[in-house]
């Protein structure tokens, strides 16, 4: 590298700038490792089998505050639910954007702009939006009855939270999935078409299977987003720490569970943090550690699958 000036001495601006870039990068990496290390340091003490397998109790005593089984299950339900909501729409939109749309029509531009704006909507806005929309009485099937009488719905349940979260993660999944579909080599499509396949058959039998690693990446990224969001869950899942029904593990209660309020790991952390009402920081750190392991695992899987598919495409 030519850090030297013509005279052969290092250029001062060069040295300062380069050093700054190194320091900035080191600082960012340090902060990231510090956060993870701090969570491990503070949270690993709280984690044991009881913590993972008992339900939370509303108690000011840390010994009686119970564990994180309900929030953990809640996070799982929410992830699955939001993916169920988002996946069909996202794949459909991604296929349409990548395969059917002319690149420069006003229609394409409008749809893309809409998706970009949707991606930029803050999750807290989705939260109040969802809470308010789903209190309309026609949505009574999705959550418990409203407190004020029969003309409203409660507006807070796993179903509502899943729908709202699905909308929140939708544009991100579309974006990654569309890239994946676009990166399928043209020769594959040409081969399929040359064999007489119709366009849709080509997409279904050739393009989508080839793009599947990228689509998996998209879904896993969406799962990470759903697991990590707090604002939507806090507003549309009721901000409690337990399920609405006591024996929620009983399959006969599952419909009621889905229609009822609950907790996820994020709201559990928020609730138990010094900022919340539960005020059990030890529990909060334990749950945060579990949460971050979960979210980072999702992200690492996405990165790994993404890189593998990128390499496969290059070969």
């Amino acid at each position, binding site marked *: 590298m030519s850090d030297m000036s013509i005279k052969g001495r290092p250029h001062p601006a060069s040295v300062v700038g380069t050093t700054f870039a190194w320091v900035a990068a080191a600082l960012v990496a340090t902060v990231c490792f510090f956060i993870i290390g701090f969570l491990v340091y503070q949270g690993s003490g709280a984690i044991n089998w009881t913590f993972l397998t008992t339900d939370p109790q509303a108690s000011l005593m840390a010994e009686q505050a119970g564990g994180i089984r309900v929030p953990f299950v809640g996070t799982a339900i929410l992830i699955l639910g939001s993916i169920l909501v988002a996946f069909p729409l*996202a794949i459909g939109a991604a296929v349409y954007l990548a395969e059917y749309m002319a690149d420069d029509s006003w229609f394409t531009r409008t749809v893309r702009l809409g998706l970009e704006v949707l991606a930029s909507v803050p999750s807290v806005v989705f939260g109040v939006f969802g809470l308010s929309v789903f209190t309309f009485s026609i949505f009574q099937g999705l959550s418990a009855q409203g407190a004020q009488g029969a003309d409203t719905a409660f507006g807070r349940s796993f179903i509502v939270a899943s729908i709202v979260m699905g909308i929140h993660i939708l544009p991100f999944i579309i974006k990654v999935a569309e890239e994946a579909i676009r990166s399928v080599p043209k020769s594959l499509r040409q081969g399929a078409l040359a064999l007489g396949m119709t366009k849709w058959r080509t997409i279904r039998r050739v393009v989508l299977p080839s793009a599947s690693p990228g689509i998996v990446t998209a879904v896993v990224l969406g799962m990470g987003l759903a697991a990590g969001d707090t604002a939507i869950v806090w507003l549309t899942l009721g901000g409690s720490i337990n399920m609405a029904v006591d024996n929620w593990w009983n399959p006969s209660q599952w419909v009621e569970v889905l229609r009822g309020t609950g907790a996820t790991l994020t709201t559990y952390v928020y609730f138990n943090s010094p900022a919340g009402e539960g005020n059990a920081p030890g529990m909060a750190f334990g749950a945060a550690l579990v949460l971050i392991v979960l979210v980072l695992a999702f*992200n690492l899987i996405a990165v790994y699958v993404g890189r593998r598919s990128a390499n496969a495409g290059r070969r």
Partner: protein
Amino acid sequence: MILTGGPIPALRDEEHHPFAAAPKPKDRETPMSMTDPNDTASDTLPLRAQAIDLKDAVGRRSSDRIMPILLAAAAVISAGLVAFVVFFVAQKAWPTFVSEGHHFVTHGGWDGQIEGALSGAATIFFGAKPLILGTLYTTAGAVLVSLVLGLGCAIFIAELAPAWIRRPLETVVQLLAGIPSVVFGLVGLAVVVPFINNFILPGNAADVVTDIPLEGASMLAGILVLSFMILPFFVTVATDSLRAIPRSYIDGGLALGMTRWRTITRIQMPSAAPGLVAGLVLAAARGVGEAIALSMVAGAIAYVPNMNSGPLYFLLMPVRTMASAIVEIGGEAMNIPQVGSALFALAFLLLMISVVLSVIARWSFTLFNRRMGVVSGRKV
């Protein structure tokens, strides 16, 4: 429709899909898009025409008729959702904007007003000025910090880092982007807030600033936490933008005797400027919408920081942002119509800021891509 459009330019057109003999060819602007690059074997037009007609015939299966419509519906619904969200939020916010007028953004006293509304006061009016300023200050501060740090980090990743550091560092940046906001809030509350309280807050703070208790949970804490939350989004976009600058630009600079650093600051950064701006704007949009972490570390008091006691105390004063006000008050309180509408008014302001920022980001990206000679809005 088949005979128009010369085959030669179409063959060079890499961006078009090879099998774009689409079900709806009339919608296409350029009929040439229906030529397959592998159609070169058919050197006479009638043969080509025959081949495509055959494909069209095969295409008339029910699934090939229905699927494009279903897929288009998915795309339109996905993109149309945002219109519904905007409309719904605006409609809910309307009563507040009508009754408060410009007082909503020019007057303060939010916390007391909400308390009054919750305890059933007869006349309620809302002033969200402290929340708006709180959002503005924290976001601007965080954008500044992440601009400086993130630019250094992006330059390092794109240009300076040895390969063995670059890959892991990129993963680290992605990890940072994946850390949930509540975790940022928790760590900020456990580390940053006590640190500010113990080491930065002067001992005689209570005598200097008398109207509000200063306890570490402050704008400064909010800015620090927020900047590391939005930094990865800026770094990712900035790194890509810097990398997209053609090697020949840099080689030209080096050939003229520029140092490596000078080519970065004088060639790469100016050329990548629209991309950098886009990244910064995206980061700002995330900062504006951040609710949970700021509600935990920034003090959660609707207070307008002032410079009366100097810039340090300005940073050490508590703030409450629009997004965190929504998440803190939202819920049961929204059953009171006025409170609900006031929260929706905040949500509407947030939404408008996000829309404007994302449109600016899109313009910047378009500008950047055009500058880089990329067609049809996609990076190569």
